[in-house]
Structures are given as structure tokens and as C-alpha cells.
């Protein structure tokens, strides 16, 4: 028997109260239809969601951890980019 695996798919599920789809895991499937049906069985069997997206993992371009220095560190020491220097009036809620 061949040891070849089906391609990997990433699963995004929107919960009943959620506004956006969230990544919840990955699974193997031969094609998109099977990925959808597997996602339903693996990730929504305890009524976690009302909508599913699946995308083949190879279609995702991920940032390379080796480049983390140039990608993310420049943002680390620039506190003036955070809007924390304003006094908010009490009337403004949920900021």
C-alpha cells in the first residue's frame, strides 16, 4: 500500500456568534469536496460552527520565521505608533 498522504487542507470555521471565520486546524483530504465534508465531521461535530471555509495548505504563503528579524522587530520599539498617548473622554466606550 502506498504511504502517500492526501494533501493537507486548512479549516476555518465561523461560530454562531462570531463575525469572522477563524482558523481551527487542518486535515487531509483528496479534494475540496472531501475536505469540506471532513471539516464538518472533525471540527463542527459539537456544534462549533455555522459556516466552514477550507483551503489547500499549499495555497497559503506563510512568512518565514528566519526573516522574523526584518519582518517584525522594527515594530517592537516604536511606542509612538500605538495610540496610547491620548486622554479619552469617559463618554467614549469600547476603545
Amino acid at each position: 500500500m502506498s504511504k502517500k498522504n492526501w494533501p493537507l487542507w486548512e479549516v476555518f470555521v465561523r461560530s454562531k456568534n462570531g463575525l469572522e471565520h477563524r482558523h481551527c486546524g487542518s486535515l487531509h483530504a483528496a479534494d475540496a469536496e472531501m475536505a469540506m465534508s471532513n471539516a464538518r465531521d472533525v471540527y463542527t461535530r459539537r456544534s462549533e460552527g455555522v459556516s466552514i471555509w477550507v483551503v489547500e495548505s499549499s495555497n497559503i504563503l506563510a512568512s518565514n520565521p528566519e526573516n522574523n528579524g526584518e519582518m517584525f522587530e522594527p515594530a517592537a520599539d516604536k511606542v509612538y505608533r500605538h495610540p496610547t498617548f491620548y486622554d479619552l473622554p469617559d463618554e467614549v466606550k469600547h476603545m
Partner: protein
Amino acid sequence: MTNNTLANDALPSGNMSTGQLEDLHKYLLGIADNSLILGQRLGELCGHGPSLETDIALTNISLDLFGQVRSYFQYAAQIIADDKVTEDSLAFLRIEREYRNVLLVEQPNTDFGYTIARQFFFDAFHFLFLKELENSKDETLAAIAKKSIKEVSYHWRFSSDWIKRLGDGTQESHDRIQEAVNDLWMYTDELFHQTDADKEMIAQGIGVDTLAIKKSYYKMITEVLEEATLAIPESKYWHKGGKQGIHSEHMGYILSDMQYMQRTYPNMEW
């Protein structure tokens, strides 16, 4: 345990004679036992499915079936004037001859092909059966059917999808699913057999006239088998007996597994 809160006099069964109630009781067991034994068979695959995803899918189906079984058994226990009969005693404490499931559902898992073919043959029947049962004059039965049919539509989608994938897949998958289809074909006719209790319930407008859905059944499965590039078996030899309590050699093993806990530790709960 959730209790069925329907009062007895709210049911059509409230006006039934003792004999009719016994027939209804038998009728309920006939429907429930199919799902119980098939659910048990699928449960055996928990942790043993061909892939994590199909493993979970098959055990999901198993749990759907057990959920339906509970509704039937609760109702069956409710209409019988014997306090010792409960949903649990019906599931775990009957002897082999008292189970009324068809032979198809007790057939072994053998391999993924057999598991899918068995499921496919049962799901098509189950779907058509529940669709009719929704019109039952018995409101409890109609309600159970209405709730179950969403689950069973998915089961049918799952199994017929796999029949097509395997049949129209590689040469090996094609040959193996064809073999499973050929071997299990002879168990399909029994799905439509009617016991005396079945006939009584059909006459009352409570039961489903299985003969009336037989043609749709074979049409439904033939379409999928053809799309899957599989040959339709021509054999007209049919196995039967389960509905009369005469089971295949597999049944004893299923029950000894399934009943072990209640037989060894009577009345245990967890």
C-alpha cells in the same frame, strides 16, 4: 436521561388495545434495532478507521444512530405496561432472538469497502423510510422521523460519495468496492420484508409501507452505482431472517461485546 414528556393520552397509542400496543412496541424495536446494531458495528471502528478523518466521520454516524435509537426505545418502553422495560433494558438485556434488525446491519466491517457498501445500502433505505415515516399518524414517530432525516441525509451523502470515489477511483479500489457491493447485495431485499406487526402498523397508518418504497430504493442505489462505474449485481438470491430474530453467526459476537458491561455488572451506571 431525558424523558419523553408526552402524556399517554396525547398519543394515538392512548386509544389502542393491548394487542395493538404490542404490535407498535414490536414495530418500534424493528426500526430501532437496525440503527442500534449498525451503530455498534460502526463504533467498533472507533480508533481503527482508515484515516483520522474517516474514523471520526464513521463514529459520528454511529452516534447519530444511537441518538435515534434512544428516542424509539424510550417510546417503546413508555407504551409497555412493564416497569422493568426501560430504554437500557431494551438495548442491553434482550437475547439474540429478540433483536429484530435485518441481517445487512450485522455484517462485519471486513474493510473500508464493505463498511461503505453496507452503509450505502442501509442509508438509501433509511432515508426513504424516514421520509414516509414523517407522515405517520403517530405523532411521536413522525417527530422522531423529522428530526432524524437531517442526519440520515448526511449519512447518505457520505456513503454515496464514497461509493463513487471508490468505484471511479483506482483499479484496486474499483475491484474491492465491487466485491463488497456484490457480497452485500443479497441482504438488501430483507429491508422491505414486513412482519405481522409491520402489516398491522401499516394498516393503521402508523407504519411505512416498505413495498411502496422498494422501487425508489433500487432506482436510487442503481443511479449511484452506475455513476461509480460499478456493475449492478444480477443475483436474485436473497438472505433473510433477522426480522424474525433468526440472525447470522455474527450477531452473537456483537451482542457479547455490546452487552458485556450490563451482564457483568447488572444495573451499573456511569
